[in-house]
């Protein structure tokens, strides 16, 4: 799926990932391809991304909103 993580000061990540592991205000969720459309509030400390080569990237955020759109597109608006 394609993912974009944006803040007001710039783009933190843009590209393809296999898996997104994020902490929402209700608990931890993992997003894979074909997830249902969802809007969720994110909490600190970070969003973890796993790409096709199983490489993990950790992006620190303090708060944010995650949106899964149809067509496996994910947007994250974050503050750092």
């Amino acid at each position: 799926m394609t993912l974009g993580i944006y803040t007001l000061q710039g783009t933190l990540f843009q590209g393809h990932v296999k898996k997104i592991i994020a902490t929402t205000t209700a608990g931890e969720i993992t997003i894979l391809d074909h997830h249902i459309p969802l809007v969720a509030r994110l909490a600190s400390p970070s969003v973890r991304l796993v790409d096709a080569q199983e490489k993990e990237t950790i992006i620190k955020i303090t708060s944010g909103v995650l949106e899964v759109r149809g067509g496996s597109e994910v947007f994250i608006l974050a503050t750092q």
Partner: protein
Amino acid sequence: MPSTKLVKQRIRSVKNTAQITKAMEVVSATKMRHAQEFALRARPYAIASLEMLRGLLLKTTDLPDLLREHSRVNAKLILVVTSDKGLAGSLNANVLRKADAWIRECRIRNTPFIILAVGKKAKEYADRQQGSLCGAFVGFGDVATLFETSPIADMIVQGFEAESWGTCDVVYTHFRTTLSQEAVLRRVLPVTRAGIEEIVRGILPEHGKYAELPHGDLAVSRYAFEYAYEPSPHEILDWLVPELLRMHVHHIILESNASEHSARMVAMKHATDNAKELVSDLTLTYNKVRQAGITRELTEITAGREALENNY
């Protein structure tokens, strides 16, 4: 006729001035480009947040307070954004004229008003308006960070929540293109969808280097299908709306900054052109004075010779 020495001195001083204004022009041009690039970084965020807001507004009727007008509170807040430094043509004068009109209207209608000033020129102006200044922010760098601009947005929100003011307007310089900026009056609070759309559009100049965008279309309707909200649309809006306001204020300050540099660039270009014209005029005067001197000396010599010849 002035002496050649005096004219020469003037030419030298005008040339020095031209050199300084030329340098300022180049510096402003670079700073302006930098400021524009910086402002553009917020664009993907702005587009995504706008689309999200649209979807959320369709799903909930229970709006956060920031989206609603206080009907009870009469007082109005105005945020006046100017530069810290002068030498930028009529940039600040235009903003202050707009602010003046706004204040005059308030006085006529007997509405209490409060001024929040950003920039030294705005602060000086607000100080002259008897006791209605509630705060001033000065000394932002050329590229203000979110860390610096957030306190302004937070202050606006706090006052709104405490019912110190019912609406917030802003006067600032909108960066239309490199060569034209205009002072505009916009509503910041309560936050409206049209207002947010305006910011997203405003992030790009109308023409010029950064005007093109690959995904410029804002009218996308992705919200036709069902969304899951976690925890609820209302709580997400509670986070999103203050965030949008922060974005709005941040952008206004960046845009004013880009406008300041571009206005200064144009003002300095005019100054350099005028100085060059003056130098050419003065050079002409200098040549005339020098020639007049030579002619006079020649006449004197010839006259002297003739007088001598007549004696013999």
